């Protein structure tokens, strides 16, 4: 009997899961919308965190753990976070052994820099394209296992749904080949989802265009619990654009970049004034809200617009080239100014989803046999993610999910190959019917325009500052869009190379996930991390130190709440105007 595991997603989390499984001698089928090397993980600029303490600052994994829990406003379950942080240095060394071109110190050690919410330099980086370098290294390791016959890649294939047996176990997946939209079913003993983030639900964000969240959203509609959906990170600095909001990495501030606007004719470094202990290195939610206050409330944005200066013109151009070339290039290419000479102009943008598929400490969802790893799950960042923690979380979750999926599969009394073929045929037919139905849609609505409308509402009402009346109105709007969805027309293009039909398909679960995000925010009457309500400005641990769990019903999401596991660090007030208190590991 052979064990067969499927991995959906070829970003950092998916590739690492696949490597772990192949390394233990088992077979993997790996699916990705795009060639793995083009996955969204390539966008990560700033770096990856680990307390390697190569600057003699006295950093430790405990400090990193405490920063992460504190930065996440105590919403994360602490045991898995602690395990991840403790594994982080060894993850860096592993990536180093795979040949990642990390920047080096004079002596040839791996160099580190500082990102927001941290008092220590613990972000390891490869120029300003760290994610790209990490994913390329993992992709080559997967290629090695492909060469050894253990991995089969299905690139430019799209996951549509899972196959569940009578007991509700996940037994495989239904997919479509994006070249011809042919539907196929693949049995498996366990499935790992590593499908990344959902920025596209907000129309434009710093995310890649394939980050629709539709895979996770579809699973939610199939019965997977979705956790902490309302926690959406808005990054303080991006270049506004019609097609995309291009991130200007936090590493810019880490290397000495300063944020300012003119006030009374003079540069005003408001982050440094308001948060003397951390200055420009406050975490993202704090910096974003400060920028909003300055631009929206005080109307002090650059040229009266929603923009602030992000300035590196005082730094040594040689150091900029060595450490920030990738980001600076993006700014030059898309804006035309040279940040070495002229301060950049940036504004906050939707960036990351802390929420995602609910998983247990083994990365398994509430559906037996279905695992999740990476940005599509909720486990490691609480209410706000620290810069540099997501790359390490994605890789670490892959390292856990791979072996746990194998262990689960080996414990099964019946393998998927023992199940009746009709189970798989039925799932395939279901999806074929769905595609056929979409091909027949000939209404007046354009799906791309409908998507744009969704994005505008979400961006306007469900990001930095949230009000209950506006959240309610947004949910009503989404329901209207759900109605109008049925009136979409997809033209009469043939299946071959068709893009509008798969896009229309993705939009449906996206709309439903948008409700989870919006209603989750509506119900949570407190402010915590990235979730901020002026009418409820304080964190309310008594009522809300809880994980939000949304389950799908035909009438909309139903919410339940689960206590947070604070096994190691007692929740304390989170503030960045003064230095963070020291905590001690309970021994």
């Amino acid at each position: 009997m052979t064990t067969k595991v499927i991995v959906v997603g070829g970003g950092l989390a998916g590739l690492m899961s696949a490597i772990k499984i192949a390394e233990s001698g088992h077979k993997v089928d790996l699916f990705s919308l795009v060639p793995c090397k083009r996955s969204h993980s390539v966008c990560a600029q700033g770096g990856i965190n680990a307390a390697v303490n190569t600057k003699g600052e006295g950093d430790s994994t405990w400090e990193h753990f405490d920063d992460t829990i504190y930065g996440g406003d105590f919403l994360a379950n602490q045991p898995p976070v602690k395990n991840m942080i403790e594994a982080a240095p060894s993850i860096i060394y592993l990536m180093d052994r795979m040949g990642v071109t990390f920047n080096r110190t004079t002596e040839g050690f791996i160099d580190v820099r500082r990102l927001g919410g941290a008092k220590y330099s613990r972000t390891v980086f490869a120029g300003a394209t760290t994610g790209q370098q990490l994913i390329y290294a993992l992709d080559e390791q997967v290629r090695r296992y492909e060469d050894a016959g253990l991995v089969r890649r299905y690139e430019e294939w799209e996951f549509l749904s899972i196959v569940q047996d009578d007991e509700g176990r996940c037994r495989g997946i239904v997919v479509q080949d994006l070249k011809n939209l042919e539907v196929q079913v693949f049995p498996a003993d366990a499935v790992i989802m590593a499908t990344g983030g959902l920025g596209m639900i907000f129309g434009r964000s710093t995310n890649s265009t394939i980050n629709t969240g539709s895979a996770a959203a579809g699973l939610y509609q199939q019965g997977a619990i979705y956790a902490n959906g309302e926690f959406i990170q808005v990054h303080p600095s991006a270049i506004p654009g019609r097609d995309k909001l291009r991130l200007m990495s936090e590493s810019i501030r880490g290397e000495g970049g300063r944020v300012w606007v003119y006030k009374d004719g003079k540069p005003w470094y408001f982050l440094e004034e308001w948060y003397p202990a951390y200055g420009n290195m406050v975490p993202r939610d704090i910096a974003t809200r400060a920028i909003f206050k300055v631009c929206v409330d005080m109307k002090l944005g650059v040229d009266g617009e929603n923009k602030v200066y992000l300035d590196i013109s005082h730094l040594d151009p040689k150091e900029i080239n060595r450490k920030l070339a990738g980001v600076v290039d993006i700014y030059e290419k898309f804006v035309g100014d040279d940040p070495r000479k002229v301060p950049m102009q940036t504004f906050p943008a939707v960036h990351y989803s802390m929420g995602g598929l609910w998983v247990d400490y083994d990365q398994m969802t509430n559906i037996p046999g279905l695992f999740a790893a990476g940005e599509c799950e909720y486990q490691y960042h609480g209410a706000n993610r620290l810069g540099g923690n997501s790359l390490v979380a994605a890789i670490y979750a892959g390292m856990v999910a791979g072996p746990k999926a194998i262990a689960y599969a080996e414990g099964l009394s019946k393998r998927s190959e023992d199940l009746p073929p009709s189970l798989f045929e039925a799932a395939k037919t279901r999806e074929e019917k769905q595609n056929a139905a979409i091909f027949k849609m000939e209404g007046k609505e354009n799906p791309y325009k409908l998507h744009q409308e969704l994005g505008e509402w979400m961006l306007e009402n469900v990001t930095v500052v949230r009000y209950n009346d506006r959240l309610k109105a947004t949910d009503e709007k989404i329901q209207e869009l759900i109605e109008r969805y049925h009136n979409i027309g997809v033209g009469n293009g043939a299946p071959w190379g068709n893009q509008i039909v798969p896009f229309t398909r993705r939009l449906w679960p996206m709309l439903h996930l948008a409700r989870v995000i919006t209603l989750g925010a509506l119900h949570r009457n407190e402010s915590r991390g990235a979730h901020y309500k002026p009418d409820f400005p304080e964190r309310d641990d008594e009522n809300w130190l809880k994980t939000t769990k949304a389950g799908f019903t035909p009438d909309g999401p139903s919410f339940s709440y689960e206590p947070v596991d604070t096994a190691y660090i007692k929740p304390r007030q989170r503030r960045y105007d003064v230095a963070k208190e020291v905590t001690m590991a309970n021994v």
Partner: protein
Amino acid sequence: MSKKITFIIKRCDNPQAVAYWEEFKVPYFPKMNVVAALMEIQKNPVNAKGEATTPVAWECNCLEEVCGACTMIINGTARQACSALVDNLAQPIRLAPLTKFPLVRDLVVDRQVMFSNLRKVKAWIDIDGTYDMGPGPKISQNVQEAAYELSKCMTCGCCMEACPNVNSKSKFIGPAAIAQVDLVNSHPTGAFRKEARLEALMGEGGIADCGNAQNCAKACPKEIPLTRSIAKLNRETSAYALKKLFGK
């Protein structure tokens, strides 16, 4: 009336179909790039004659020139559509698919061959395993900086498009994969299997098929010194061949 930008786009429904050019007029906005224009066409698939048409198929993903997906021929040059700003392009703007790869539809081509080539040359480091074994070898800043230049290759295909020796009659693996051999071979641990990669480059479609046209380095959007890697590996494969012949 607001300014409109004219796009003339090469369209083709499938590999067997006959290609044709279709014109679109897209309302201008500041800092407009080719991707944003294609997105507008998706939202309003009507050609310049006012006829409803199918939306143009094209690939894109990161939109910041690190994933390589949106590569196409823009006014005769292979480049990424995301970083092609309309203000810097002669108009009308002509878009066509890459020609060195099998066509899928409109501007979409299949570049799988580039990934297969990476497998052919074994562009990975043979680590013992993913278990904890401490850090890798120390590396000097100079070596890291040289390697970083090569490691930015996003397999976009611009170098393949520019190379006269990559064509339907040749099996030439092209510049990108050769530079990746240089990258892995220059790593202290990667070098342990240097010879296997040199062997791969000496096989059919290998480095000997390079005609030294030197177009590749000029075409690379990431300014990877491709010709330098090719020259270096030319010397190394020759030396290795001699060593094999006489060495032992």
